[in-house]
């Protein structure tokens, strides 16, 4: 498959990249690892005039501890995150999610964490070849007015299948977006817009600089379900975070349950999360109940557009959340 034509620019520093984005805005796309962008370009879903490569921006690849935060540069490769002991210890959900991205030994060296959380939403009807799409009316995401995933839907229902996003949202991460002259910090809950066509609250002249994970002393876990164990997107995923209270180690003080690959954005399930507060770590029935609440709440957003049947995916939300909670609880008690 040939790539469409574009102009390739390789800025030598971060400011240079921001200047280019400031000038070209919508005409330009940022290339980090290319494992998502180039595939979409090959399929004719994107035709940027200019590609801004981050190849020379080594300063955006780092993992460091800063007081009670872990800071990860946007261009850090997935392989570096898996190899980091700090991530494994303090943000286990992210480690587990990164291990599942793409294929262990191949895409990890090129794929980046920034690229993973900024990967576009997917839909079985949209992510097809130009030839396939030419045989029918364009859908909402393709610039048309039809949704093939849900009849008579007035909006795009594409699904966010990023592994990293679900895990990071469970960990309560923030991201830093930079544009020429200014910088802003936004938490992931607000960053994902739940709009299928433009899934991120991000301007075209902005660049993702770093991901900041607060170290809260709790334990996290990530579970996902996919057809294959490698090179596949999840059809359901769950990231959870559990923190014990200071007074009693066996009591859950704070919980965050996030379900991914089911809706237009990873969804934080407030009701299920608050249900767990005050419960005991060895209370399996409470986990089961929280998982069932998660399933009920998440099912309302589910759309049949990433393979497998909708009923199966919804049923598996409960299972994924339960497994993730159980694992996080076991790790906490060790």
């Amino acid at each position, binding site marked *: 498959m040939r790539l469409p034509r574009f102009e390739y620019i390789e800025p030598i520093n971060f400011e240079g990249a921001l200047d280019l984005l400031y000038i070209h805005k919508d005409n330009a796309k940022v290339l980090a690892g290319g494992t998502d962008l180039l595939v979409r370009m090959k399929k004719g879903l994107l035709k940027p005039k200019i590609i801004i*490569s981050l190849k020379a921006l080594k300063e955006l690849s780092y993992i460091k501890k800063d007081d009670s935060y872990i800071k990860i540069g946007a261009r850090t490769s997935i392989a570096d995150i898996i190899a980091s002991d700090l991530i494994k210890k303090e943000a286990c959900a992210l480690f587990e999610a990164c291990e599942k991205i793409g*294929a262990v*030994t191949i895409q990890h060296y090129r794929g980046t964490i920034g690229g993973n959380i900024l990967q576009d939403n997917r839909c079985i009807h949209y992510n097809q070849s130009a030839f396939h799409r030419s045989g029918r009316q364009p859908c909402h995401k393709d610039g048309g007015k039809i949704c093939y995933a849900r009849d008579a839907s007035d909006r795009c229902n594409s699904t966010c299948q990023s592994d990293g996003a679900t895990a990071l949202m469970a960990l309560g991460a923030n991201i830093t977006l930079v544009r020429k002259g200014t910088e802003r910090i936004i938490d992931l809950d607000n960053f994902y817009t739940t709009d299928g066509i433009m899934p991120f609250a991000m301007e075209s002249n902005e660049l993702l600089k770093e991901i900041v994970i607060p170290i809260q002393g709790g334990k996290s876990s990530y579970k996902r379900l996919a057809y294959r164990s490698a090179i596949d997107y999840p059809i359901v995923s769950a990231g959870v975070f559990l923190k014990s209270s200071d007074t009693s180690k066996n009591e859950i003080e704070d919980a965050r349950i996030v379900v991914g690959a089911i809706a237009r954005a990873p969804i934080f399930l407030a009701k299920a999360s608050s249900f767990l507060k005050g419960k005991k770590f060895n209370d399996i029935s409470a986990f089961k109940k929280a998982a069932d609440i998660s399933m009920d709440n998440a099912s309302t957003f589910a759309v049949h557009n990433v393979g497998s049947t909708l009923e199966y995916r919804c049923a598996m939300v409960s299972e994924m959340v339960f497994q993730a909670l159980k694992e996080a609880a076991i790790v906490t008690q060790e």
Partner: protein
Amino acid sequence: MEKILITLNINDKPCEVMVYPNDTLLEVLRDELDLTGSKESCGEGVCGSCTIHMDDKPVRSCLTLAMEATGTKIKTVEGLAKGDELSSLQQSFVDHGAVQCGFCTPGMLMSADALLKINSKPDEKTVRKAIAGNICRCTGYTKIVKAVAHAGNSQDHCPDCITFSKAKE
């Protein structure tokens, strides 16, 4: 759109080549440099048959722009053998009958070679994980896994290893 002159370090040889910005490394290797060992099959990073090494790490050449590969050390499947002598991994593939139609083989070899560089005696699970990104549609995985695990590490209980080591003697 104009062609741009870039220098690539391929199999320890510098190559000057004119490329378009939208050429992938795979297209340059196959069409411009006649290194047709790396194969294009899915073209979207799923099958692994275009795997090459960049700085000793396996990557997909179909999802790498040729322009992005400048300044790195590239190794293709042609660079594994030393002259006419196959590397121990390639010989092991031959000995164990790990090549069926052969289309996935270059990618498998590159993924396995990267693994063997960091772990010379991998167990079956490690090998399977290492080649998880490569698809063999003949589904001859068992023999491929065996060939990788026994490369340069011949096993007494393996009939293929024994037969061929005896034949050499």
